């Protein structure tokens, strides 16, 4: 790992590879042109990594697209500034002025780009080998045979196991992490001097993300290229960047070395942003979860005073009987193939999962994609039927309930989905969506006597919207008129409508910007303190989980491998997979780049198994107070 000194030396020693001066980009809006990027300047030296950070709408992606003039094809245009780039031939040219078409030879040759979504960036009808070879032939003028050899070399370079076999595969046969490696191989096949990586790891699981980040860094050292890293994830920034450019509302608000930005941020926005970033290990030594000590910035003018330390979340009523008890829950999906739909295999999504949630408690279910955490939540909610096992809510086995009982259950358990926009019906007003649970369950809100039911529901909607930080008059509006964070607030208001006891939050903050994510997490915790709610918090983000949960269950391949109090699991992880997961989380602190990266190799195996091939499930054995671990080799050797 290189420190600030090395980075500073690189900047001093080499003349800038790329220097952006006063870049402004405008898009045509409904009411005339809108400046999306306004007077942004920065430089990148060879071998240096510059991270451009900001939240959605900050203009960071538009800035990166402008560098290759791809913004011209997206409807934007550069209205000011210069982009000076020193090509491989040593000639410096301004990329901001010539027509976008004349720069085709430079794209993918001198400057290469890696995008967020590796599936859509690869053509599904061609094999991996053909696609890389095509890029090589286009830019290096090699013949087919030589290009294919070069493709093989590139795949070896991005550390793909068995690269020769991979050449003849199609993109859909590869995992997300492998696809991103292929994209990087393609981008690097022409040995560009500048690589622009636009959120390259956002769609990937943490353990895969860590591998890709390490790979980019290794290749950068080998090839000496400059890297521009666009991201919203401060953990990733702390991990990879030498220098950081912070963008807010289309402007650059701060720039500095990564250490300076993290240790002594100057601009109020940067300070507020950093206050909202969940840092793994922030609650070391704490038994109970604590809310984010959020700074609030108001138009970058008022410097907000640091808020009072938030109260600890002491809400668990441990003496009471558990609210939700899940025992040996198994959910499997049949995979049918062929014209007769014969049963070929099964997806073992959830295998003999057992846990309990106490009143007022937050139990986090963590794991990577495909580990069965969402299926567990959906099965409890009744959106999916269980293959076997029992679910007891409030002491009653839900399988024994009649249809009225089932309906009642859906009043007391509520679900919050990951994507707040998709989970609200776009054709219904927000007020209706919030009121709908009350109408479905004939729930009469307690309010002043003498009110008609209609008025009572309306008042309740207004009250709920106020509780989640919105205004009563928002009830008349439609979901598309709100921002992502506001929509998630609406979903929370809807979940609260019938006074539920348990809320299943399925990646409820994963799609939100960090500052909004912190606000929503705080809101959930505040509501828990006020109403004694229990949460089943399903998440892949260890740092957020550390903030919110009282207890944690780690899932891997459909099984719980470790279950225990948050502090015990985070400070003394027992299962190798838990350790792997922790090691993979990028920590938003550049002074802690010394993670044990040896732990991070390999792919997540598939939960699809052939018929009769039942997975072995080991019992959870106690290793400490309330702390259990499944001692078997799933996800790592014991």
């Amino acid at each position, binding site marked *: 790992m290189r420190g600030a000194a090395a980075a500073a030396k690189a900047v001093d020693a080499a003349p800038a590879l790329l220097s952006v001066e006063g870049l402004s980009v405008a898009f045509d809006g409904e009411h005339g042109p809108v400046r999306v990027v306004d007077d942004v300047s920065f430089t990148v030296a060879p071998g240096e990594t510059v991270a451009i950070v900001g939240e959605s709408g900050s203009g960071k992606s538009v800035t990166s697209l402008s560098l290759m003039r791809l913004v011209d094809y997206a409807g934007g245009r550069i209205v000011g500034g210069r982009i000076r780039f020193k090509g491989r031939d040593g000639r410096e040219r301004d990329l901001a002025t010539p027509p976008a078409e004349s720069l085709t030879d430079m794209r993918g040759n001198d400057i290469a780009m890696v995008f967020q979504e590796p599936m859509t960036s690869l053509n599904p009808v061609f094999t991996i080998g053909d696609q890389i070879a095509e890029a090589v032939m286009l830019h290096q003028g090699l013949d087919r045979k030589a290009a294919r050899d070069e493709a093989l070399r590139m795949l070896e370079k991005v550390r793909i196991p068995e690269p020769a076999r991979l050449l003849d595969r199609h993109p859909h046969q590869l995992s997300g992490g492998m696809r991103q490696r292929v994209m990087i191989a393609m981008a690097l096949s022409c040995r560009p001097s500048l690589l622009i990586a636009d959120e390259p790891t956002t769609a990937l699981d943490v353990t895969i993300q860590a591998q890709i980040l390490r790979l980019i860094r290794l290749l950068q050292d080998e090839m000496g290229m400059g890297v521009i890293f666009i991201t919203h994830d401060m953990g990733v920034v702390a991990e990879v960047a030498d220098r950081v450019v912070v963008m807010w509302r289309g402007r650059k608000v701060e720039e500095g070395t990564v250490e300076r930005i993290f240790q002594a941020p100057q601009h109020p926005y940067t300070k507020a942003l950093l206050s909202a970033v969940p840092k793994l290990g922030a609650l070391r030594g704490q038994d109970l979860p604590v809310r984010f000590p959020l700074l609030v910035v108001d138009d970058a003018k008022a410097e907000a005073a640091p808020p009072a330390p938030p109260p600890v979340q002491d809400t668990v009523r441990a003496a009471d009987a558990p609210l939700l008890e899940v025992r040996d829950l198994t959910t499997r999906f049949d995979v049918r193939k062929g014209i007769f739909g014969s049963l070929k295999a099964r997806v073992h999504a959830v295998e003999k999962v057992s846990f309990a949630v106490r009143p007022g408690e937050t139990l986090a279910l963590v794991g990577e994609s495909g580990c069965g955490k969402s299926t567990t939540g959906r099965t409890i909610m009744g959106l999916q039927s269980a293959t076997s096992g029992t679910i007891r809510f409030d002491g009653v086995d839900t399988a024994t309930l009649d249809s009225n009982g089932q309906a009642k259950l859906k009043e007391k358990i509520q679900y919050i989905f990951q994507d707040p926009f998709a989970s609200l019906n776009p054709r219904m007003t927000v007020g209706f969506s919030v009121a709908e649970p009350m109408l479905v369950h004939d729930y009469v809100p307690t309010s002043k006597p003498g009110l008609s039911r209609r008025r009572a529901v309306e008042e309740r909607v207004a009250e709920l919207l106020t509780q989640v930080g919105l*205004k009563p008059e928002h009830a008349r509006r439609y979901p598309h008129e709100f921002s992502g964070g506001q929509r998630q607030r609406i979903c929370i208001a809807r979940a609260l409508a019938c006074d539920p006891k348990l809320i299943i939050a399925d990646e409820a903050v994963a799609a939100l910007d960090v500052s909004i994510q912190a606000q929503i997490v705080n809101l959930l915790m505040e509501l828990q303190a006020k109403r004694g709610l229990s949460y089943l918090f399903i998440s892949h983000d260890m740092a957020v989980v550390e903030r919110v949960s009282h207890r944690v269950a780690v899932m891997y391949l459909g099984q719980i491998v470790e279950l225990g109090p948050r502090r015990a699991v985070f400070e003394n992880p027992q299962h190798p997979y838990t350790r792997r997961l922790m090691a993979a989380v990028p920590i938003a602190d550049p002074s802690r780049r010394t993670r044990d990266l040896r732990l991070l190799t390999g792919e997540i195996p598939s939960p699809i198994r052939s018929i009769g091939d039942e997975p072995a499930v080991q019992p959870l054995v106690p290793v400490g107070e309330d702390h259990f671990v499944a001692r078997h080799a799933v996800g790592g050797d014991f």
Partner: protein
Amino acid sequence: MTTTDATGVAAAATHEAVRSPLREFWRKFRRNRTAMAAGFCLLALVLAAAAAPWIAPFDPAAFDYDRILEGPSAGHWAGTDAYGRDILSRILWGARISLSVGLLSVLLGGGAGVALGLIAGFRGGWIDSLIMRVCDVLLAFPGILLAIGIVAVLGPGVENVIYGVAIFSVPVFARLVRGSTLSLKRAVYVDAARAIGVRDRLLMVRHILPGTLPSVIVYVSMRIGTSILTAASLSFIGLGAQPPSPEWGAMLADGRSYIGVASHVTFYPGLAIFLTVLAFNLLGDGLRDALDPKLR
């Protein structure tokens, strides 16, 4: 930074008018001049048809043997036919028949098709297979042939033409709605509604049906044009409206013998059919542009 979330958009939202889906649709549709013009033409035609008893210059059935097959003149703007009847008046009265046949058959067929498509898409399984296989069979016939067959069985007449044309609209709507139901069924907000305990029937009617309506509305407008054309064709071959009814297709059939000596007898009813069908199609195109979420 809370400004971007809690206050920024909210402040904007409180001062602007509510952007309801209907309002958004109107905002987009208004900008499409062609579709607006088509809409106005159709509105004028509907009003003219409704007001036919008062605005038609002559009785559409009154014979005038002094003015047989006369060309357009100041007295008879569109001329007269073989019995001296005023063609303009007959077209105005005929609009009543043609429009109501088009509208009623599409509403009947569309209504049944939407219901079947919704059930097939939502329930799936054998119900889906049954409904869709029957639709496949109906679609295997050329539309007009199917309508001829149905009218031949039921007997000629305007009412049976409506049934015939309606039946051949059913599978088209069923397929359309089944397709969008299948995709809407997987929408997260449908899962969300299910999670709060909304039962299947309400789920279909409240959360899935409104989502299919935009494409249905577009199709209705296109389909009315087709239905008018089919109904006119049936009348032309003598299976639909019977003489002396001033149905447009029947008028074409009446004028067929005189096409060499008095082409206006076929020209004006033909023009009426052409313009009406064109207007419905243009309106449909405009509706699609304004309603289709993919084009936003």
